[in-house]
């Protein structure tokens, strides 16, 4: 049996001798495809509005999804359990090199919900202070310019390190200002430090530090992997405290859910007399972040997409109406060849629907390309929900069909005798 879209076969017993006309689905599709493809330039221009509308629609939804997923991935448990305290030095920082008290780690770790906390600052090195595996002038080691970080024992722990060898320094090293260092695995490779059994040393300038630990990875402060980390008392003994412009910071690792509470109390705990010396950076609130993403701008774009779709629909309606008038002769001919009014209706509906669907498909592709391009530029992972990609061409199709309703109805009303008179 062929698919019969329209028209039922009369009962064989009916004495009319007349079989009703029918339009098989495949014939309908090929007739309307021909109608669209025979004037490609016009079809393309007609579909342009739908392309823009659906494209904007997909792009806005895709960008929103991409941004929120970016926030979700960035806002994981780690950032939610991290508080940073910056030393601003109050109103006159030049008179206060380091606002963190010597027992800052202990003061903060007393707070409920704090796992580890520590103070750190970058050490300012002179031009001759290259990092080498041997003293300057011995063995011709080239040396490299590497950051040296002064850190209290809590910093490395708060960074959640994965040690490939050895250990981190502790309160004992800190108290005695021992010349020890923890270095990243990459730096250890470059310096040729393969084992700690021989108690190897690294030289910063002409000062030797015994390497007691090699860190393979950290969860926070990835820059520590590229640094030589030394106890802060040691750093103070050799190079002095933090300098202006490179002031100390505190890294606090908290229990889940405790970060905001701690953020509000940490400044007072550090210095009850001068909490204003500290600037506390709490973890971002995911809700407020996402709220700023799905902002008014988004709704504006959706409105824009809707307007584009309406313009697209009007464009299709207009062109189809013109086509109906232009093709009056063709309509008359089809009627003479046995087409019923409804066959004419569905043909024009199918043509306008095809234009809409075509615009929808192209728009979906363009919108997707836009989202991917934006994500690539920002080094994000593009996210488009499958529902969006599936729904968008349907939106185009529906736009086309709705736009074709009036012209198709007009076409079916054209009397064949009138149409053939021309």
């Amino acid at each position: 049996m062929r698919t019969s879209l329209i028209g039922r076969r009369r009962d064989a017993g009916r004495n009319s001798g007349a079989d009703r006309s029918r339009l098989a689905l495949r014939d309908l599709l090929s007739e309307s495809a021909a109608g669209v493809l025979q004037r490609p330039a016009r079809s393309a221009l007609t579909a342009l509005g739908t392309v823009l509308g659906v494209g904007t629609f997909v792009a806005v939804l895709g960008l929103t999804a991409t941004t929120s997923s970016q926030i979700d991935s960035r806002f994981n448990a780690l950032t939610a359990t991290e508080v940073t305290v910056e030393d601003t030095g109050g109103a006159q920082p030049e008179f206060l090199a380091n606002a963190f008290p010597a027992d800052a780690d202990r003061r903060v770790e007393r707070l409920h919900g704090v796992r580890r906390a520590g103070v750190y600052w970058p050490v300012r090195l002179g031009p001759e202070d290259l990092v080498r595996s041997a003293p300057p002038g011995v063995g011709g080691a080239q040396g490299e310019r590497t950051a040296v970080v002064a850190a209290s024992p809590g910093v490395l722990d708060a960074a959640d390190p994965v040690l490939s060898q050895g250990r981190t320094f502790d309160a004992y090293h800190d108290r005695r200002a021992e010349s020890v260092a923890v270095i990243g695995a990459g730096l250890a490779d470059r310096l040729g430090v393969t084992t700690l059994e021989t108690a190897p040393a690294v030289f910063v300038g002409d000062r030797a530090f015994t390497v007691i630990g090699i860190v393979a990875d950290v969860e926070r402060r990835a820059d520590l992997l590229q640094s030589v980390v030394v106890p802060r008392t040691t750093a103070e003994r050799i190079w002095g405290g933090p300098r202006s412009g490179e002031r100390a910071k505190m890294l606090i690792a908290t229990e889940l859910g405790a970060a905001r509470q701690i953020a509000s109390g940490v400044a007072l705990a550090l210095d009850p007399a001068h909490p204003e010396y500290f600037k506390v950076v709490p973890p971002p609130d995911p809700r407020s972040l996402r709220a700023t993403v799905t902002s008014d701008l988004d709704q504006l774009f959706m409105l824009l997409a809707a307007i584009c779709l309406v313009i697209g629909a009007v464009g299709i309606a207009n062109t189809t109406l013109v086509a109906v008038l232009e093709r009056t002769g063709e309509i008359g001919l089809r009627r003479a060849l046995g087409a019923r009014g409804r066959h004419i209706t569905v043909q024009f509906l199918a043509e306008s629907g095809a234009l809409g669907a075509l615009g929808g498909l192209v728009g979906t592709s363009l919108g997707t390309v836009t989202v991917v391009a934006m994500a690539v530029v920002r080094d994000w992972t593009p996210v488009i929900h499958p529902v969006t990609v599936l729904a968008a061409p349907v939106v185009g199709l529906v736009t086309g069909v709705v736009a074709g309703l009036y012209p198709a109805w007009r076409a079916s009303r054209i009397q064949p005798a009138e149409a053939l008179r021309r």
Partner: protein
Amino acid sequence: MTGTPTPPLVMDFRGVGLTYPGPPPVAALKPCRLAVARGEYLTVVGPSGSGKSTFLNIAGLLDAPTEGQYFLDGIDTATLSDADRTGLRGRRIGFVFQSFHLLPHRSAVENVMLAMVYNSTTRRGRTERAREALERVGLAHRADALPTRLSGGERQRVAIARALVARPSLLLCDEPTGNLDTATAGSILELLDELHADGMTLVVITHDPEVAVRGRRTVTIRDGVLSEQVRSA
């Protein structure tokens, strides 16, 4: 009773007339009787505005008469619904128009195939049937040409092939040579003669007496009044 059995009637007008409602009402075709048997070649002549196209529209089921009964192949078309009349038209009547009415973006063979879209012809074999019809009108070699690349005479041949391809009982031609020069018109008329010789029932409407005489019977319409001249032998 003896003698040859009379062939069945293809077209049978019994008091058929049409008055356009107006205002003012125009009696474009006064009630008339006319019977056309299978295989006949009838020409209809008359001056402009006399009612020829009105006659053709009724005969072709494009318009329903306001009076009388029209039997096509013995079927009383007045009792049919609009949909059934359309179906009957698509299957039993082939139209040839003065202005060809070919779709400009489709090749000759595709134009011919259009006549098989609405009347339940299976898709398989449509192309072959269309090519056969084009061969019948002597256009096999131009089957894939677009109408814009065809001469007027060739276009009318395509239109005739389209009218023939669904194997209608009646071929209705409205001024088939109206847009053609004399020589081309002559070749089209020869083609119609051949079709008549093959047994096709032809009704040709014209205002041209040269064309009118090609018919085996001729009726004249004047101010909506249809009358038949009896030819002397």
